[in-house]
């Protein structure tokens, strides 16, 4: 690709390339030319989407369609439950669960004979009907894609396609037509807030850093997505790496920084690869380096690898890690905007936050802030997972209700089970119950019901999950990830974890619940950084909303969900037992007695709750609870 000498030539290039987008944005309906986009995100790649692309390309060639049909990869469509996804343009046909061996049929039937492959179309579970096009799917109807605008639309490995969809236009406009203050003003006006957890206004952060005088300043992109169960940052980097590069440049221009770092998890090999490719292309096009687009603005970006420490999502810890040390947080102030990386003013923004920035500057703040709630503007990407039908990435306007996300977009609870709770905000968040499903979600409202936005993980829990066990899971996570610097977190959270363990083992009393609540509140007030302060949230929110379930554990010593092994009891239903003796033979501790063809009985004092009898009973006479 040729060097882009100035803003004008970028716009000219965009004009030449824009036809690529026309077919994908359904601006041309009737055309012989077709395009297939195959999801190339980590999820779909794990289900052989690479092989699928290979097969499709071979079939297209074999059938002499190469000049009329093109197949390439794209970023995550978000519908990960049904991957790999193949989308056909311009018809907007959306094939799901496509296997490599389906390639021949798609090419023969759809591309050559003009018939859709019915069996690969998505079936709407509520209507029991196949859906012909993507925009008719319930999963997409309420979604609005800004941060994910290019995922599923462009090939992330081609800078040309990014430019075709108005890529690098925003930075061009900024450095040639706007003063840095004007850029910051626009971002402030848009109401964009940090998407990584804190929700701090992005424009304000930039303004602080711009006002601090220094010859050297830094922009850091936080791509150390640590919340287990959230994968939006990874998907954006895999599906649209150029948007992050462009946004970092915009941030750099507005605060006066010339150097950026992307701090990325080493466990994200594909995202790293795509980002490296994008950086190389941007360099070659003269979009990174010195005198970008003929202006005085110079900027370059370096990749730094995380090494698996959740606490590095905290900005001061992240900075220490980039500096090559242990990723331990330090007290704020000083804020990084004042004294950050190597003591210089630094802005740390999360991937999803940055992904919004170019769109805001191309379309204007008022375009962005017309969606959302009073305090939270724009959209938010949620990683919907757990016991839900449509697991995937969804981007929705702020102010939507949880009910809409879980039932309309997510398709409801898996296997028709009962909804118990939804956990938002990852290890720092809390559980939300059915009574709050109609709360319009934004930063403040989620906080008000004892949870938080966090990075946007949304884990749906059903009746089969024990709430104490879930709280214990999160605590175990924060205990392992605690850096050990401050006592409330190092010792306090460990004690909390032990208390939860004791509850699941039936060794606690009602008084212990109060002690636990007090300890949790103390940690919240006294821990040094965000990790420690928010670690007790899963405990506090579940104590509030599921006190009865805790009580059942401590008073009656039962686990209503049947999860806590130590509290399980296995019973034989006399009416069902046929006396086949299989259970007593399977029991490793001889806890089951009974004669052939007579009802058997389990001795609870001997039973070790291994579940062997439960597994072998041919008539389901054994119940656990």
């Amino acid at each position, binding site marked *: 690709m040729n060097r882009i000498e100035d803003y004008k030539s970028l716009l000219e290039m965009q004009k030449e390339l824009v036809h690529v987008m026309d077919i994908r944005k359904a601006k041309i309906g009737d055309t012989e030319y077709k395009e297939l986009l195959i999801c190339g995100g*980590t*999820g779909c790649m*794990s*289900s052989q989407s690479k092989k699928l692309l290979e097969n499709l390309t071979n079939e297209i060639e074999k059938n002499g369609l190469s000049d009329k049909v093109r197949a390439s990869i794209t970023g995550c469509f978000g519908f*990960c*439950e*049904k*991957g790999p996804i193949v989308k056909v343009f311009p018809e907007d046909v959306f094939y799901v669960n496509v296997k490599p061996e389906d390639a021949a049929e798609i090419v023969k039937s759809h591309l050559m004979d003009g018939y859709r492959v019915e069996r690969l179309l998505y079936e709407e579970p509520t209507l029991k009907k196949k859906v012909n096009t993507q925009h008719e799917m319930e999963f997409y109807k309420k979604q609005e894609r800004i941060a994910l605008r290019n995922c599923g639309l462009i090939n992330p490995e081609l800078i040309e396609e990014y430019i075709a969809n108005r890529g690098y236009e925003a930075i061009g406009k900024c450095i040639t037509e706007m003063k840095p203050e004007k850029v910051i003003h626009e971002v402030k006006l848009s109401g964009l807030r940090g998407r990584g957890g804190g929700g701090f206004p992005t424009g304000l952060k930039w303004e602080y850093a711009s006002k601090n005088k220094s010859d050297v300043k830094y922009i850091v992109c936080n791509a150390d*997505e*640590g*919340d*287990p*169960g*959230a*994968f939006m940052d*990874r*998907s954006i980097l895999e599906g649209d790496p150029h948007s992050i590069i462009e946004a970092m440049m915009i941030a750099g221009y507005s605060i006066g920084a010339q150097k950026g770092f992307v701090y990325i998890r*080493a*466990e*994200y090999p594909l995202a790293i690869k795509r980002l490296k490719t994008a950086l190389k292309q941007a360099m070659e096009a003269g979009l990174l380096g010195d005198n970008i687009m003929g202006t005085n603005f110079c900027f370059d970006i370096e990749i*730094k*690898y*995380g*090494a*698996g*420490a*959740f606490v590095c999502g905290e900005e001061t810890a992240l900075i220490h*890690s*980039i*500096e*090559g*040390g*242990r*990723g*331990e947080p330090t007290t704020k102030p000083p804020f990084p905007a004042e004294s950050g990386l190597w003591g210089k003013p630094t802005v740390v923004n999360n991937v999803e936050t940055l992904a919004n920035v170019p769109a805001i500057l191309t379309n204007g703040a008022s375009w962005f802030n017309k969606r959302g709630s009073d305090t939270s503007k724009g959209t938010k990407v949620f*990683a919907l*997972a*757990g*016991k839900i039908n449509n*697991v*995937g990435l969804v981007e929705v306007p702020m102010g939507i209700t949880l009910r809409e996300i879980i039932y309309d977009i997510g398709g409801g609870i898996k296997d028709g089970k009962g909804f118990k709770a939804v*956990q938002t905000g*990852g290890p720092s968040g809390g559980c939300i119950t059915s009574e709050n499903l109609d709360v319009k979600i934004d930063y403040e409202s989620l906080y008000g019901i004892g949870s938080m936005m966090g990075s946007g*993980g949304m*884990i*749906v*829990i059903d009746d089969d*999950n024990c709430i104490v066990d*879930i709280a214990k*899971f*999160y605590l175990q*996570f924060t205990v*392992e990830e605690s*850096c050990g610097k401050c006592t409330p977190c190092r010792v306090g959270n460990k004690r909390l974890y032990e208390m939860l363990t004791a509850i699941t083992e039936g060794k606690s009393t009602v008084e212990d619940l109060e002690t636990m609540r007090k300890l949790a509140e103390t940690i919240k007030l006294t821990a040094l950084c965000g990790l420690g302060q928010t670690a007790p949230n899963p405990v506090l929110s579940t104590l509030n909303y599921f006190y009865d379930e805790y009580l059942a554990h401590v008073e009656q010593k039962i686990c209503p969900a049947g999860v806590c092994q130590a509290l399980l009891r296995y019973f034989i239903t006399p009416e069902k037992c046929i006396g086949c003796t299989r259970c007593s033979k399977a029991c490793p501790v001889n806890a089951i007695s009974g004669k052939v063809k007579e009802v058997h009985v389990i001795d609870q004092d001997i039973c070790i709750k291994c579940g062997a009898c439960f597994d072998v009973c041919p008539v389901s006479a054994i119940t656990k609870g």
Partner: protein
Amino acid sequence: MQAVELNQELFDELERYIDSIETKETALIEVLHQAQNLFGYLPMEVQLFIGEKLNVPASKIYGVVSFYSYFTTKPKGKNVINVCTGTACFVRNAESIVKEFEKRLSIKTGETTSNGMFTIDCLRCVGACGLAPVVMVNDEVYGKVKVEDIPKIIAKYSE
């Protein structure tokens, strides 16, 4: 840490890598990544070597190595079984998958079988939550894994 025989060629390669870095003061984590790629783990000898080359005290290096979960000071087996225990996999019963691997291979998570064939590890989210529960063996991802699938997975890597 035990003293071990390590390949001199790998040390040479690591040395070349370190020499190629311009800003050595802040390169520690990158160097450790590279060293672990080469050696598979970070034994004492490698840490001391890096310390000398970067002019960083060994105590600091050990501090950094032990801080990050990605770095390991123990050698791993030929096949590393990583069970995802992120939240999405957890609520879809990843625990039982871990237990089954432990039972079948008679080792605990974090340990390596005596014949050096398998190591069991847990990791936090590979980001394929749609496929939960997920198991990664080396670079291969297995989605929607059931307890019954485990003997097959182990058998595939046992030759």
